[in-house]
């Protein structure tokens, strides 16, 4: 790939920080739509979630986030948010949850606990 490193390294732009790119490395950061693999999907029971973050820590795809829910426990409550574009439905989150409040539900039926599809 002659010419490729120079082309990418000398490109002017606002994000042109001093970074460490040398040689003919891959330069396109892309993701595969692994959400299409899912057979089962995690259905968190938000009312019982304590926001401990075990599912967030152990999710191999890193798609789980614990976010604040203003509607729960006077603004101090936490809920689980999952990025459905990449969740592979492996079920680790349901297995490691100490309160066992994540249940794996069939993908076709959708998730009654989750508003977003």
């Amino acid at each position: 790939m002659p010419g490729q490193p120079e082309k990418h390294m000398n490109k002017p732009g606002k994000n042109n920080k001093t970074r460490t790119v040398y040689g003919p490395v891959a330069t396109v950061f892309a993701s595969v739509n692994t959400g299409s693999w899912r057979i089962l999907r995690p259905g968190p029971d938000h009312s019982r979630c304590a926001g401990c973050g075990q599912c967030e820590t152990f999710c191999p795809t890193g798609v789980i986030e614990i976010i604040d829910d203003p509607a729960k426990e006077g603004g101090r409550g936490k809920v689980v948010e999952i990025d459905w574009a990449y969740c592979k439905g492996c079920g680790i989150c349901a297995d490691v949850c100490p309160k066992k409040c994540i249940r794996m539900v069939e993908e076709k039926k959708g998730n009654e606990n989750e508003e977003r599809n």
Partner: protein
Amino acid sequence: MYDIKNTAKGLVAHGVSTCAGCGLELIIRHILDVLGENTVIVIPPGCAALFSGYGKETALRIPGFQGNLENTAAIAAGIRAGFEVQGRHDITVLAFAGDGATVDIGIQALSGMFERGERVLYVCYDNEAYMNTGIQGSGSTPFMAATTTTPGGKPSRRKNMLEIAAAHGIPYAASASAAYIDDLKKKVEKAKNTDGPSYLHIHTPCPTGWGFDPALSVSLARAAVQTGAWVLYEIEKGKLKLNSKTTKLKPVSDYLKPQGRFKHLSDKDIQDIQQEIDEYIQVLASRSENQAVI
């Protein structure tokens, strides 16, 4: 500089085509969280090559190079030498290889790197066989585990790669597990700040190769530590420090029973494995200078 097609929380893309429940995918996220973007990664062919990507696409936001199976450590040492000439002592060079590329094919380059004392962080993710090419047995496959090349169970013992690495007298060598992320992160931080070669050997369950439900990945890795089938310890300048318990261990069948690769084991085989584990734990405990914490 990088053409970012999809956003990601950390330095690793979310949509990577590793199997569902992959232990490797879990640890690479946490390792790169600790190391930060001032890192150059070297990945040999294997499951981790999925993170190198295909063609000009990559799943990592840090520069990387995909080398050959034999010379991961040599490439990493070369990159380090180049950075030293430029005075970039701040950059971490990370070699990220599987068990086949470490204990079998890449061991000569790795041994040379340890001997020369290159400042490289070498991570071996151990899924206990050549998973990417179709579950062939490797030097790290445990005794009696079934693979496609050892369908009746591997007749020989596994190599103790961590002891081999530590025998080179390197400043830091440690074992870690995908189920103990805090312990893993601490060890990566320590290895990053080591002035010299450091070696991490990480147990990463593979649902496809070991034959278990992907949901059990983390609990199986935890069971391995709780039964003593995998021991967490670190060797710092020749001193061994245990990080996992060596007393009141669970029976090893808790770890073996859920796995398809061990389903042919008879009660006597399990007894033999249990006895071997007990003996090895005794050896480690007698060498250790502390009481375990986890």
